[in-house]
């Protein structure tokens, strides 16, 4: 396999395999026979910390809009709602990662996949484009995170 791209989050590297595509909401997407298999990128997982909880608010068979809120995830450092990276239909949900969210830490690009969406490749990014997107996001993300951690919410 080709060497992954690396985005440096401060001193911490986030690896981005080049055999798949990425969504702007920090998910990876890999073409499979019944659609796109998606999961969280290393960038997202590093921000969340050790994953402890994952739940879905959609079921297999449900149609989803792009950016629709579809789930919720909690890690040691942060929580987040999860949003659909593409419009389509939920084809499969990975039960293993619901039962053991730490798969997102240990095997995020393989057995830690989240779900399969039937969808067209609408607006997915190449690894290089995602790397550029991360470079653009990172300064703002850092300021947002520092603002939250400071607890004053900018007021």
């Amino acid at each position, binding site marked *: 396999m080709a060497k992954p791209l690396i985005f440096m989050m401060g001193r911490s590297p986030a690896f981005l395999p080049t055999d798949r595509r990425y969504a*702007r*909401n*920090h998910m990876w997407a890999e073409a499979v026979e019944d659609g796109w298999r998606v999961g969280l990128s290393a960038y*997202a997982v590093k*921000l*969340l910390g050790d994953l402890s*909880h994952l*739940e879905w*608010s959609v079921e297999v068979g449900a149609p989803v809009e792009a*950016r629709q*809120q579809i789930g*919720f995830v*909690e890690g040691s*450092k*942060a*929580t*987040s*709602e*999860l*949003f659909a990276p593409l419009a389509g239909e939920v084809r499969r949900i990975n039960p293993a990662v619901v039962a053991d969210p730490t798969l997102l830490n240990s095997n995020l690009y393989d057995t830690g996949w989240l779900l399969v969406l039937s969808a067209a490749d609408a607006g997915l990014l190449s690894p290089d484009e995602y790397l550029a*997107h991360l470079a*653009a*996001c990172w300064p*703002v*993300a850092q*300021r*947002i*995170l520092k*603002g*939250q*951690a400071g*607890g004053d*919410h*900018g*007021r």
Partner: protein
Amino acid sequence: MADSIPVILSKARPDRPDRARMDAQLVEGLSGRPGVELHVLPHVYDLAPDGPGVEFLRPISGPMIVLAWLYPRSTFWVLDAHGVRGRLGQAASLAGDEPEPPPQAKAPNAPDGPDRTIWCVDLRAHDRAEPCLDEIGRIVDAALEPAAPEGLPAGALPDLIDEATRPRWYPVVDYGRCTNCLECLNFCIFGVYGLDASERIVAEEPDACRPGCPACARICPAGAIMFPEHADPAIAGDPAASADGLKLDLSQLFGGADPAHLAAGERDRALSEKQRREEEPPGEKVTPPAQDDLDRLVDELDDLDL
């Protein structure tokens, strides 16, 4: 010492048939059990303020066991909001599974509950009825000590308290944490909060709350406000998740909004939905607190098309 203890089963909401099965197994397992006086109620969070369920619970003056599909902390403070007070007992400490939690420093606002224990059991902690029944058995033994269970009279048939409920949505205040800072009172624009006769914050108009809006829970500096049916454990009352205040929320970075903005957004969306639903002419303009820096940051984020 009493020879039986009331066991209150707060049933799952009707939209959860999976949970209803476990409710039925618990009723079967507890009916006629020595020492157990079983009462079955609709979901405790959905009980009307002066409905039959609350009217039944209020006069119980001794210890009781409450089984509910909620965190024990949420169940306890929901009961408190209904005027049913005591000390929170948690079964996990009896099993020796977890160390007894250190006594919380008493917040200035904590009420003096009556000297009785309300044991709260989280039914979501088990996927089968048996371990729940074991846990309940341990509590009954502890609560009725020193009477040996075999010496107890057989329990009565379950008592069904009938109340037509519908799903409610309102904030529940943990007065063990609340510092009466009144941030929630200032933040909520739906008039949910008020002060009682002793100037203590209360959810005065709980049903004025907008369903789905947990904004005041995010804004509370003490992590004292719970929405027991919210998906986020920190908001639903998980003491571990919310002990150090709410965690960072990355929803804005992952496609949503950051907490303060998220909170204001949730509130404002709930308001516009209310206005749309009621087809009211837009009334007094509601201006969220000035957050220029934050707004600028969020605008930058929007520009990035996350």
